[in-house]
């Protein structure tokens, strides 16, 4: 509701990649989602000042850019951790005990879904039905599937990621 201006940490690839993306879509309001997707991919989050530049360059109202960025859950308006931990919350995985996996990750990392820890090690997210239901429940870390998971195995998996 209230907007606090967060100073942008422009992130991993620095300004160059983002500038390039903005220039590619300058003057094309229909390309808003493409532009934001590419920046999210390059930078792993969307700082507010970058959002402002995108809105100006693509000639869309800033409020529309904010609506899109907050609506779609692949966009992150806050910085992400080094490793993304997804627990699949699809229906099959749920039936097979995904909720207990979620509790275990919460217990071990102190993070609730959507949160990143203070050392930026992990971001914990839900993923709904990633298509490998037959090996559920699953934990997916940095895109790697860990199928047929049980709460007992979670600690070992997380240990491998610094």
């Amino acid at each position: 509701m209230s907007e606090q201006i967060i100073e942008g940490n422009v992130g991993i690839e620095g300004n160059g990649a983002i500038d390039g993306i903005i220039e590619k879509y300058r003057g094309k309001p229909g390309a808003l989602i493409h532009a934001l997707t590419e920046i999210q991919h390059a930078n792993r989050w969307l700082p507010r000042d970058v959002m402002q530049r995108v809105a100006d360059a693509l000639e869309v109202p800033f409020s529309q850019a904010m609506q899109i960025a907050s609506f779609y859950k692949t966009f992150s308006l806050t910085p992400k951790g080094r490793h993304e931990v997804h627990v699949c919350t699809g229906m099959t995985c749920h039936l097979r005990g995904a909720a207990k996996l979620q509790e275990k990750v919460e217990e071990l990392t102190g993070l609730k879904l959507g949160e990143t820890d203070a050392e930026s090690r992990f971001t914990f997210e839900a993923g709904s039905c990633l298509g490998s239901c037959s090996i559920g429940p699953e934990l997916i870390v940095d895109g790697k599937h860990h199928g047929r998971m049980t709460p007992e195995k979670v600690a070992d998996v997380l240990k491998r990621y610094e």
Partner: protein
Amino acid sequence: MPKLQSAAALEDYRAQVLSARDPARPSIAVCAGAACGGLDSAAVAAAFSTAIEKQAAAAKLDFRVTGCHGFCNKGPNVIVGPGDICYFEVKPEDAAEIVACTLKGEVIERLVYQHPVTGEKAVHMSEVPFYKHQMRILIGDIPKIDPMRITDYLAVGGYSALAKALSKMTPVEVLDEVKKANLRGRGGGGFPAGLKWETTRNAPEKTKYVIVNGHEGESAAFMDRAMLTGNPHKVLEGLIIGAYAIGAQQGYIYTRHDSPQMALHIQAALAQAADYGLLGKNILGSGFDFTVELHYDVGIFVSGESSALMRSIEGHAPEPRPKYIRTSVSGIWDKPSNLNNVETWANVPEIINRGADWFTSIGSEKSKGTKLVSLSGHVANSGVIEVPMGMPLRTIVFDIGGGVPGGKAPKAIHFGGAMGGSIPISLIDAPLDFDGMAKLGAPIGAGGLLVMDEDTDMVEVARYLLDFLVKESCGKCVPCREGMYQMLKILTNIKEGRGRKFDLERLADLTEVTSLGSLCALGKTSSDPLKSMLRYFKDEYEARIAAGAAAGGLAT
């Protein structure tokens, strides 16, 4: 590769491809589908490459990495030809032995299917119970195709339907064949595709679009991804034929952002089809121009709804539009747009090649053809299957699925994810079809079939599904946004022992108003799972409320 300029040129080229291949030559196909990939099939494939090199076998057998073979929980899957010998749960260490035995024509007994109860073994696909009862018209070719090689698709007859349509049929004749076949939408709507095509074709605007809805947001449905990853050309061929019939010049494939392998395969298919003159200007010398763009979703379920998806392609937030404006008349940028599901498009080439009469000979009276089903949950054999419409659910769950493991009894079957419904196991003899299942309150949706065992908490299932939908609601209209939210609160209370006597009455009002008042299908069908629970499992809900009150929960 110079572009193929006519149907005859395509057939000449196909003959060349086939003459360079020996059907008697041994082959090894490693499945790299979603589940097998999750079980590290990449390591298995790498082990095969090494073994083949070490045994100097590259010239003596064909090796390929393919899309989904279907028997997902028994992966990593390997199929050896000729004869479709199926090896299951293959490890990297097994690769060398498999290569050696394949060259000698020998079978490795310990890797073939063995029935968990009878111990009976099955070597060939046609003998394995999981595969035996299927009719694999759409997915049968997947183990034969490396999705990065268009020539593999040509070798199994690919694009012959397109050539036939462009050179021997008029657009209206193609349209009529699809109408005659009564191909109904496979994404969940079950609406006759031919009629939708016709509306789009007849719309006054000259610019028209066709769209593949590859979003597959339905929870526990994974067959569209298997189809697009394993044989993208079949879907593309159907799309081009449809565009020809409708008079569209531009197509869109809309799919998920979170499957890089699928994206890679679709991109390769589009590029290779264009190289061969099967996409782009003057396709096969017919004068028909058509191009396709690939778009990704950005991670929200509602963007699978057709009008929302079109807004997303335009670059807006995926807010659905009311259906008073049909998208086949006014869709993307207000132009007539025909959207169909992946599986619907994939059916088109066979209908053109083998004819509507062939298609209508399969299935039941009003549901023709086959259906892809994602079979999962508390079931022994799970994966992607293809069966004729009209097959009794009993056959799917017990003969193909192998029943519930661990000696437990099945309790219910759920179809359609968050927008479907559950039926009790007493109704297991119902046939798989659109209308009958819808009447029972469990519309088949996209085809995700979930088996639930005796320990399943039916209050929790409804609560979970509403929780999922609440997070996915766009939030525009009151009945969906507020109605679902209040339903979720009530169900959470019931589950946690705080249910009250008037809860069922409030739930009844909420389900009615949300169904009637919501703007789009998400809101309208959001209460369907709960409705099916109240229809078949009401006593479980009442008992929960009573138990909560008895234990000192809130009184009425």
